[in-house]
Each structure stands twice: as C-alpha cells, then as structure tokens.
C-alpha cells in the first residue's frame, strides 16, 4: 500500500461477510471498473485501475484526477471533477447505458 492510500472502510458493496474485504479479486474488480467507466463516461470522466491496493483513479479529460477507494469515495470524486451531478436517475445516462454508449 502506498503512502497516499488510506485503508478504506468496510462497505457492503465489497460482498458478503465471510468474503474478502478491501481488495476485490481480479475478475470482479475488472468488472466493477468497466461498469464505472460506462456510468461516468457521459459525464466526461474516465476510471482506471492502478492494479494494486483498493484504489481506483477517476480523471477528467483535462487531466485532473483523484484517487478513490470504495464506491462512496468514487462518487464524491466524480462530483468534484464533473460539472454535472452524476445521477442514477439521469435520463441521459440511462439512454447512454441502454444504447451501449452510442447515445
């Protein structure tokens, strides 16, 4: 773990009580990153996985970036980096997801 990385808190989205905490196995981790990319792309944001530690990197097209561990921190970072609020009920987002990013 690098010096900038704080240990994330337990979060329900990391799975069942007896599952691995903090660090997702590779396949679910890849899948989560892929889904976050699809959700944040309409807001001009990209998500990348540095490959170690529990953190992901959220970045905008101008190069501003934040490191975030866990889903709540990712949404907070996205709120700061995007000019539009990321909203699960945003019709434009839903249209984009339903058309596979072609909207």
């Amino acid at each position, binding site marked *: 773990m690098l010096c900038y990385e704080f240990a994330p*808190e*337990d979060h*329900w*989205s*990391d*799975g*069942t*009580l*007896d599952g691995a905490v903090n660090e997702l196995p590779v396949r*679910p981790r890849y*899948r*989560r990153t*892929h*889904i*976050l990319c*699809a*959700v944040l792309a309409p807001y001009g944001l990209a998500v990348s996985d540095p490959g170690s530690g529990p953190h992901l990197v959220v970045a905008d097209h101008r190069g501003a970036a934040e490191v975030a561990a866990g*889903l*709540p921190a990712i*949404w*907070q970072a996205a709120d700061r980096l995007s000019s539009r*609020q*990321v*909203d*699960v*009920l945003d*019709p434009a*987002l*839903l249209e984009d*997801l*339903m058309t*596979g990013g072609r909207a």
Partner: protein
Amino acid sequence: MTLLGVLETTESDPIRHSRRGVTLLSGFLGSGKTTLLRSELDRAGDKAPAVILNDFSETLVDDVLLSVDGERPVVLSGGCVCCTRRDDLALALAGLLDDEQRGRTPRCDHVVIETSGLSDPGPIAFTIANDPVLKHHYVLARVCVTVDALTGLGSIERHEIALRQLLAADDVLVTKADLVSPESVEALVLRLHEFNPSATVSVTASGHLLRKELPSGVSPATQPLLRLLAHGADTSAISTLELSTDEPLDWQAFSVWLSLLLHRHGPDVLRVKAVLDVRDVGPVALNGVQHVVHRPEHLTGAVPPGSRIVLIVRDIDTELLERSFNAFLSIK
C-alpha cells in the same frame, strides 16, 4: 414463540455467531413497547437479554417496570438515541461488554434496545454497524416496531417519525388488538403490509401473540401510498417498488447502481430489502434502513430462484427508478 426473537438462533454462520444480536424495539409514543418487552422478559426467564432503555423524558418509570431480578436495564435518558445520544448508546453497549469481560455479568448473546418513541431507527442502526469497536461485537439482528391498533395509523399518517419507524421494521407488532374490532385490526394489518411489504406483521394483545403474517410482497399500485405534509403546502409522496430479475444477478452492476442511488438520493430511500441470487455466489440477503446498508449475508436452505428487491422511497419516480435498475444491469 417469542415476539422479539430474542431466544431464536438465526445466526448460521460462525462470523455472525460470535457477535451478540441486537434487537431494536421501536414504535411511536405510547404504542406499547414497554408492555411488550416486559412480557418478553417474563417469558425469557433465565435467558433474558440485556436491555438498554432510552426515554425522551428525564423522569423514568420504564426502567423500574423492566427490572429483572433486581437488575435494572441500562438507561439513557433525556433525548432520543438517534440524535443526541449516539455516544451514550455506544458507551452503554461497550459497558455491557466491559461488565462481561470483568466477570460482573454472564455473557448475554442478545441485547434489546428499547428506543424512545420519537427515535428514528436508521441512525441507531448506523451506530451499531459502524462503530469501530462495537461492529466486531454486535450485529443488528432485527428491528421490531410496535403499532397501536387504536391510534397507530393516525400517527403514521401525521408524524413522519412514526412512518420512518414502520418502514425500518423487519417485524411489525400490532399492539392492543383486544381494544378494537377484528375488522379494524384486519384493515390495519392490510394497510401495514401496503406500507412495508417486506416486514412480518404480528397481532398482539397485552404482550401476547394472537397471530403472525409473513411479508406480503408489493402490490401493483401506481399511486403513492401516502402523501405527507412536508413544507407548507408541499407534500412528499411515499412509494413502494419491487424490482425483480430471473437471471443470476451481476453483483458489480447492482452494487454500483445501489451505491449511486444512495449517494445521490439517500435521504429519500427509506428502506431496501432484498433476496438476491448473485451470479457465482448464490442466494444472499441484503438489508438497508435509510442510508445504512448492512453487508449481504449468505442464505442457506430453500430460497426461491431469482432476485427480488423491495424499495420504499420518497418523492422518487418509481418508473424511472425501475428503468435505471434495468439500464445498469444491461451494461455488457
């Protein structure tokens, strides 16, 4: 049969079994919480749970009523557990552990917290689930909420806190059923199922169980269940929605969706309760009271195929919410 489930062993996996179960006993002012708890303690005898009592007033009588063999319950007075007494609640729970470890009291596998009639169960659940020490020793087992057969419906329709209590319930306990007609009880039970389709509803009188009904499932209603007066002439609409899918659930898509829903609309998501058939994992239960979602738990035994999620929301377009759920699950 116990009304609050304090004698039942529901913790099948060893991680949960090592922690003490906490039952929150909530319910609006005067809805019969203490009567019910007294009966429960009588029935439990030697296996009586530890009791933490919170009262809104400074003058307490309930702690005397609830004494078991001279042992008074731990009392938090002068405010609601949810807003002003979180630290006290944490200290009280830690104090029980301390007493146990020093050998002053035997280990109690169960604790009942009787909350003030004006408490919101959500933040109390948050305290138990997120305190860095307590979360390793306690687990929220269930939220039981009393509803007065005489005045309960009126309280729910007039006081948002009574509604919040009802929506947080895993078990709703209708009290004083002997004081109204069977038809009135029947109508109340139906209405309670409409409000909180994920809860069991038990009918009681003088602390004794008369009958118990399992969760009803969401009825296909298009109108909000209730409009509460919010700010001036504005109203806020409470709606219930059941989402389902027959395919094994993509946990990553679902958890990204639900976490974003709670991030953006958390205060308006009053309840989440789900049985999910998670791909490569199997059936799990997920339970959330307002913004507090507990880690999912593996389910053993017979579970119907597919995933069912019950959401109780305020001022959220349920059709749009369903579309959003389907859109996230459609991500390839």
